[in-house]
């Protein structure tokens, strides 16, 4: 009995220290200087964009933030978007971020990159999410290297507007292996089942959009590593059943002129790089503009910050070109 109590006290003290350290280690702002990290920073901009300024919200895993470029759409069509994609995002996280977005924004369209619908929510992942939420010290443990005085008393408050609006700029290029890209979308009748848990969350997202007067649709970015016709059939089936619009760009790689030697980041063809994303974005932009009533804010003075952001983005592209040379 005495031993059991001792164990409980030991574990109790452990969690208290962990919670205290979490208060210190959690970044106090969403800036890189505050230690949020580049990848983590991408999605945090949805908390800081001015209220009711975003027209399109994009959700999904890495396929989303590697293929959809909000600033390019701003430049071409004048509507605003934000990508709330996160690495290996589960559909339950998509629902969470959509809720966050709806708190401050009134988007007209919500788009989900459908790859996330096939990702199962494993126990380890659950545990990790729980731990990251309540004990951020573990995620940000490396911050011991640059803790400041402020970290000991300040509470976190996000203020930074994220320039690329959730898009992860990458010029990394690898030629996709022939074995990976050839016939990866060979037509067949097989339909890969979407996990029932994910269908439940998909319905919740759809309902949430309806409640907030936003149109909801699905798309898939070209990805020979992650996509095939079985999955296409599975999503098409669900989309039809639930009455959700769906475009699979894996079927349109020729129309998009995807160059497998230049447009992908990895040899297996997981993610598009900037040139690939540009092709997907242009296609989606035209599709969204032609099929929906989206505003053009380019002449609106209150959206001047978007022009600045676009210019910064262009500078980023130029700099990366120089670095490549």
């Amino acid at each position, binding site marked *: 009995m005495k031993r059991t109590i001792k164990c409980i006290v030991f574990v109790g003290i452990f969690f208290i*220290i962990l919670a205290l*350290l979490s208060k210190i280690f959690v970044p106090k702002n969403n800036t890189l200087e505050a230690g949020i990290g580049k990848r983590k920073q991408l999605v945090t901009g949805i908390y800081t964009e001015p209220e009711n300024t975003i027209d399109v919200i994009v959700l999904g895993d890495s396929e989303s933030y590697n293929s959809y470029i909000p600033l390019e759409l701003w430049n071409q069509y004048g509507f605003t978007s934000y990508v709330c994609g996160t690495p290996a995002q589960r559909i339950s996280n998509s629902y969470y971020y959509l809720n966050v977005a709806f708190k401050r924004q009134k988007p007209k369209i919500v788009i989900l990159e459908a790859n996330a619908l096939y990702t199962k929510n494993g*126990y*380890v992942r659950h*545990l990790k999410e729980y731990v990251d939420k309540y004990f951020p010290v573990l995620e940000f*443990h490396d911050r011991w*290297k640059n803790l400041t005085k402020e970290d000991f008393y300040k509470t976190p408050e996000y203020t930074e507007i994220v320039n690329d609006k959730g898009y992860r700029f990458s010029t990394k290029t690898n030629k996709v292996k022939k074995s990976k890209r050839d016939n990866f979308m060979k037509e067949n009748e097989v339909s890969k089942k979407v996990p029932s848990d994910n269908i439940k969350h998909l319905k919740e997202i759809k309902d949430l959009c309806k409640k907030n007067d936003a149109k909801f649709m699905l798309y898939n970015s070209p990805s020979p590593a992650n996509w095939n016709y079985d999955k296409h059939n599975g999503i098409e089936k669900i989309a039809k059943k639930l009455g959700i619009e769906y475009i699979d760009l894996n079927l349109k790689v020729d129309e998009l002129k995807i160059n497998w030697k230049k447009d992908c980041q990895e040899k297996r063809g997981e993610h598009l790089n900037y040139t690939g994303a540009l092709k997907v974005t242009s296609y989606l932009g035209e599709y969204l503009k032609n099929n929906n009533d989206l505003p053009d804010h380019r002449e609106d003075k209150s959206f001047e910050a978007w022009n600045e952001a676009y210019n910064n983005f262009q500078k980023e592209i130029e700099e990366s070109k120089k670095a490549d040379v």
Partner: protein
Amino acid sequence: MTYFGVAYLFMFLPLTLIAYSIVPQKHRWKVLLLASYAFFWSISKKLIVYVIGSTFLIHYIGIWLELLQNERNGILKEAEKEQKKKIRAEYLKKQRRVLTFGVLVNIGILLVVKYIGFIGGNVNSLLQTLKIPFKLQIPKILMPIGISFYTLQAVSYLVDIYHEKIKADKNIARLSLYLTFFPQIMEGPICRYSETAMQLWEGNKITYANLKSGLLRISYGMIKKMIIADRLNRFIGEIYRNYAKYDGGIMVAGMVLYTLQLYMDFSGTMDMVIGTSEIFGIKLPENFKQPFFSKNISEFWTRWHITLGAFFRDYIFYPLSLSEPLKKLTTNARKKIGKYYGPLIASAIALFCVWFCNGLWHGAAWTFIFFGMYHFVLILSGKIFEPAVLWISAKLHINREKAWYKGLQIIKTTLLVFVGELFFRATTVTSGFEMLGKMFTNFSLNSFKDGTILKLGMDVQDFIIIAIFTILVFVISIMHEKDISVREKISKKNIVIRWTIYYLIIFAILLFGAYGINYEAVQPMYANF
């Protein structure tokens, strides 16, 4: 799943421990076997058939050997005295055939799975050099986890039965557990049947003392692996990949720190393995004994990867040295070149075989073969020059027992180990020589002064953390060398000091461990061998 991953530490291991404690003692082996197969499956999936196949094979070969022995014993009882020798020889021959078959199949599988790419690649290079327009199609064979380790255990089991050191196990489940026990399947230690099989079967109770002691050992392993070894990974990778870009000073840093990384990684994993087994009340043999306090290379190999060295000693070196041809060679050589150098020739041949196998065991690459040969040459020359060294020491009145002399021997040995590990890690033997060459032809400290050293994947804080924890491991090693048990010392302190130490260990790992998005997860390095 790996030993240092979240899935293993927070799901697999606790669930196995809970299941193990709640089932009655006589069923506990089932929990361990099930967990072991589940662990194997989680990494190698269908390749589990290899280990199942090996288990069946050695089970029946073992029984076959024992049947032959029983049959021989029966006949011997009835036989006349003068016939006994003949009967023994006849049965020895039969047994040898069975044993050879069992060993060859086991080793054969390992050879095919592990070396076919290497052999085929070399044959193709040769064909190309000779301008023969023919190319071998090399099949890609996936390697199941731990095959290099459990194959040696399987071989030792059969040889031990052959030598009648142990009886064949009629229980295939126990044999299977001996081969696949999950904490040791990835990296050893390479155990003998007589050391672990019965312990694994007994299903000892998990006691509070074992749990505490095992967890402490595990956390020591985590400090070594997660704080030191994994933090070094990016830095080491950069230097060995792009060595042409850097000067000799960086080469020295790369050589020394790679040895540190390998030691912390492998011995840290061993702490994890042995600590985990300790919780289950199972005592596994140690694989490390403060190797950097060795005074010569032979001693180093009795302190580093001990169970591999012991395997080669018992199953290659001794049998070869005691074989008829080498015994004859020794007798002849003794007459011609004397008592010291005479037996050395046979030893050298056996030693060559040991180190050739040792090199090759580590992997199918010329760097590993070179690594083996390097140690062979060092150990052999140590033996050849020993009389000369003793003579010179006597002439110069050097007391070899003095601390300064021992210190010099330790430094010399450590330097030789550094060079060996440089080739072990180098991408090719040529690049190993180029790196070594740079230390002499292009040595400079400029990279340390101009900050280049801090641009290779580690910053000042990383170096400081590595230094602090390496010193800690060094101090603990000195205590172990003096036979002081650190864990015992901690357990005798009062609760405040004890708990403070526990929390310091836990939070040191959580804060300074190289895990999370800023680091690449590093598989235990010996798991690939």
